């Protein structure tokens, strides 16, 4: 008996066994809910029953989208960093009026369904968008001067719009924790502000920048809606090609080959990222003085802050604002007489949302949709935090199995929602999942996407907790769980909040898997939005925008509540 206990203790000391212990549940979760459906799908489709042979593959159908995917993802990621890094600087260093609101608003694009974002950009930059109308009026032009929709620029802009928040959240989370004395030390040693940034700030931020870059790149890499709806028909990424092959040409084997390719690319990118970033997280000095947030002081600082706020506002917020504004405006040709367009303020779109005018079985009351969305988001948060924390602890053990399992964890980001959805259908179409328990599949699918974000947020925070603090707590008599509660949890609290916000927004906004897994009994907000916008008529369009506005408000409310949550120890930050 005692020898077994000794054995156990020995295992507990071995980092690989510890890593295995921490990985156990997350690996079962991923294996069961991600790898099983995918493998089952691929296995089925490549089986002879589907009559697929590799010799029939038209390589051009693979290379062209792959090339374009890599190109647009790289360029989009670069631009996102160009906007996001100064944004992170702004949020970590300065206080200014409306900062909390701006930060919350910059998170919102993340949750918006692409259909609505396209509508928002259309209302702003489309042929009859406000900017074009304004320019036409101002310069007396006959045709809209800005051609935005269906351009490559629209794809890039929308990707920046969607993903800037990732860079801002991930990087400023790390930046705020940086010991300001290090930059002071560099200055006193003769480093100019630029040298200080290059030699000290940037290297210390590198792990978080790499993490943000990876997440943004993968998001852009698997981009679907943006490319389809804003880029127009001449652009196709792998994901768009998968969509075409799977759902419009019913060529599932080719779709599988493409999605395997997409997964392999994701894997390569993730492994390269792991090589590049290594184990860069550094312990925070317990006496570290964090960057104090202050008002911009000198003239050029003020100008820079104003410029950044304006840039973030015009890029991230104006499309949403124009969308929200549009949900209160009536704009329709009056009885077919052109030129006599009735314009004005209306609340009808909102009023109409509450009425099931046609007695439809599938009518979605907005409150029910919001409730369902939140319920799924809450389950997603619980699942991802539980598994995310376990993975973060597993990654902290210096064991080679992390080199294998960590990239495998990131793969769901590179899996096409269509492929995963179809895989779910094959594997989970028998009890307990087919009927009553089916709704749990949706938050599980959301969790698969959110988990990489949560892990990438929690892991650096965990690695920066100095080991001595835990030892101190142990010596002071705290049992392991108390050590976790009194040391780890408070020090990770800000990162846990960021992780919760990621899980919330991903779950609220996810649409791809939702179309496969959502149940009419539990319609979510994005599903409801799509129901309206897929039908003609001013009222449907207005209701879709009104529902989107509700989604934004509800999500902003959720974020504000989360940011005010009092986790133990949050006050010390």
């Amino acid at each position, binding site marked *: 008996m005692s020898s077994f206990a000794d054995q156990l203790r020995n295992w507990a000391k071995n980092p690989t066994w510890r890593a295995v212990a921490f990985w156990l549940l997350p690996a079962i979760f991923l294996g069961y809910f991600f790898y099983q459906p995918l493998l089952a799908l691929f296995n089925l489709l490549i089986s002879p029953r589907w009559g697929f042979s590799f010799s029939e593959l038209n390589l051009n159908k693979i290379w062209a989208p792959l090339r374009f995917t890599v190109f647009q993802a790289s360029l989009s990621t670069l631009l996102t960093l160009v906007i996001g890094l100064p944004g992170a600087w702004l949020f970590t260093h300065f206080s200014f009026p409306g900062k909390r609101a701006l930060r919350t608003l910059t998170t919102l694009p993340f949750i918006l369904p692409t259909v609505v974002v396209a509508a928002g950009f259309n209302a702003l930059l489309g042929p009859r968008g406000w900017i074009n109308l304004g320019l036409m009026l101002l310069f007396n032009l006959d045709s809209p001067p800005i051609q935005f929709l269906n351009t490559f620029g629209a794809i890039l802009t929308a990707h920046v719009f969607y993903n800037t928040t990732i860079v801002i959240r991930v990087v400023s989370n790390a930046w705020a924790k940086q*010991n300001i*004395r*290090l930059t*002071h*030390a*560099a*200055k*006193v*040693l*003769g*480093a*100019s*502000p630029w*040298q*200080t940034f290059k*030699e*000290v700030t940037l*290297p*210390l931020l590198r792990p978080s920048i790499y993490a943000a870059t990876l997440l943004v790149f993968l998001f852009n890499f698997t981009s679907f809606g943006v490319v389809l709806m804003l880029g127009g028909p001449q652009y196709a990424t792998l994901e768009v090609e998968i969509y075409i092959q799977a759902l419009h040409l019913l060529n599932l084997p080719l779709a599988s080959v493409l999605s395997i390719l997409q997964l392999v690319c994701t894997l390569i990118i993730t492994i390269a990222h792991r090589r590049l970033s290594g184990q*860069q997280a*550094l*312990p925070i*000095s317990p*006496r*570290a003085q964090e960057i104090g947030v202050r008002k911009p002081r000198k003239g050029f600082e003020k100008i820079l802050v104003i410029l950044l706020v304006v840039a973030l506002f015009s890029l991230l917020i104006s499309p949403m604002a124009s969308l929200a504004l549009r949900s209160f405006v009536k704009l329709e040709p009056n009885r077919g007489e052109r030129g006599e367009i009735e314009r004005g303020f209306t609340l009808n779109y909102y009023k109409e949302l509450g009425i099931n005018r046609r007695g439809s079985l599938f009518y979605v009351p907005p409150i029910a949709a919001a409730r369902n969305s939140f319920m799924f988001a809450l389950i997603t948060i619980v699942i991802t935090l539980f598994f995310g924390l376990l993975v973060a602890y597993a990654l902290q053990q210096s064991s080679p199995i992390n080199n294998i399992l960590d990239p495998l964890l990131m793969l769901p980001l590179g899996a096409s929602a269509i492929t995963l959805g179809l895989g779910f259908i094959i594997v989970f179409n028998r009890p307990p999942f087919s009927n009553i328990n089916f709704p749990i599949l949706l938050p599980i699918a959301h969790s698969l996407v959110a988990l990489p974000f949560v892990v990438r947020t929690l892991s650096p925070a965990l690695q920066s907790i100095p080991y001595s603090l835990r030892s101190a707590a142990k010596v002071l008599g705290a049992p392991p769980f108390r050590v976790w509660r009194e040391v780890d949890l408070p020090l990770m609290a800000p990162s846990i909040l960021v992780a919760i916000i990621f899980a919330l927004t991903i779950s609220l906004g996810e649409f791809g898997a939702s179309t496969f897994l959502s149940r009419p009994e539990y319609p979510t907000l994005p599903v409801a939005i799509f129901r309206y916008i897929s039908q003609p008529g001013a009222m449907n369009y207005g209701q879709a925008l009104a529902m989107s506005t509700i989604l934004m408000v509800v999500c902003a409310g959720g974020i504000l509540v989360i940011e005010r949550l009092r986790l133990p120890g949050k006050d010390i930050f």
Partner: protein
Amino acid sequence: MLTVENIEKSYEGKPLLKKISFVVEQDETICLLGSSGSGKSTLLRIIAGLEEPEGGRVIWNGQDLAGTPAHQRRFGLMFQDYALFPHRNVAENIAFGLRMQNRPQEEIQKSVTNALETINMRGFADRKVTELSGGEQQRVALARALAPQPRLLMLDEPLGALDRSLREQLSTELRRILRDTKVPAIYVTHDQEEAFAIADRLLLLHDGVILQSGAPHEIYHHPKNVWVAKFFGLGNLIEGRVIERSPLKVDTPLGIIQASCEQDPPQIGEKATLLFRPTRACRNEAHCPNQIAGEVVDQVFQGEAYHLTMRINESIPLFNVSLSEPVPVGDKLTIYFKPGDVLCLEDEGDQS
């Protein structure tokens, strides 16, 4: 060299530094001594250019540094937590300042080797700074601050985080290095022993002002006011009321005491605080007018002398003296103070 003129700074609306002025000369190590929270570190950051004062000037060799950013001041600052760059190894940390000056590679290497030798850390060049012990980190931080040959070196509680024996050893080393390099230095600490050991001149910072400055022995022997005497633990402080100004006589619970005063003595009838240094007590000076009698309640042997605690009466239950011979606990004891050894001090509240 360095002139600090009327520096003002507040923290969260409360004044932290009120018109601080002092001068640091070539080859001089001055020590800013004060309790924690007295604004010592803030003053260093202002001199370094990391923070801006709300008033006053920092002048180097007659040149106002207001427009000179921190990285162009060529001052060295060693931080309380060392602030070593965790992403660079020992050698890279030391070389940092030299690289910023774009010195040639060979020169940097030579300087780093020399610096490592100076701090007795040969062979540590490639070590990660996060793996060093506290004393090693402290020495690397010092080497890093000294390597670019700063015009002025500032040290912010450099020994604060270390244990006592390491602290004594390193303060000796530090004194040697400061003497050898001849760089003017400002040393900030809250520990008077450290300050006495290292400083050519002490500046006592309290409540936003420099209460007193001077060589350690001067301050020790001529504390300016009651706060200074208390801060240094100089001896027994007894309050009384002036009954005669020349010679100064004060009515205290010990009786009428003849004392001396370095400044203008208080007016008759005013309050006065008298300092009796334990070591100045003597036993057989019959001609001494100040005679104090009491009962010995405690005795501690301290090598050269015996530290005795006396009970004089109800209002003065504890009075410390230091004598060369022991007196058994419980015995009656009479001691004497010369008027010149009883110092009349200004009240702490007298300061503006």
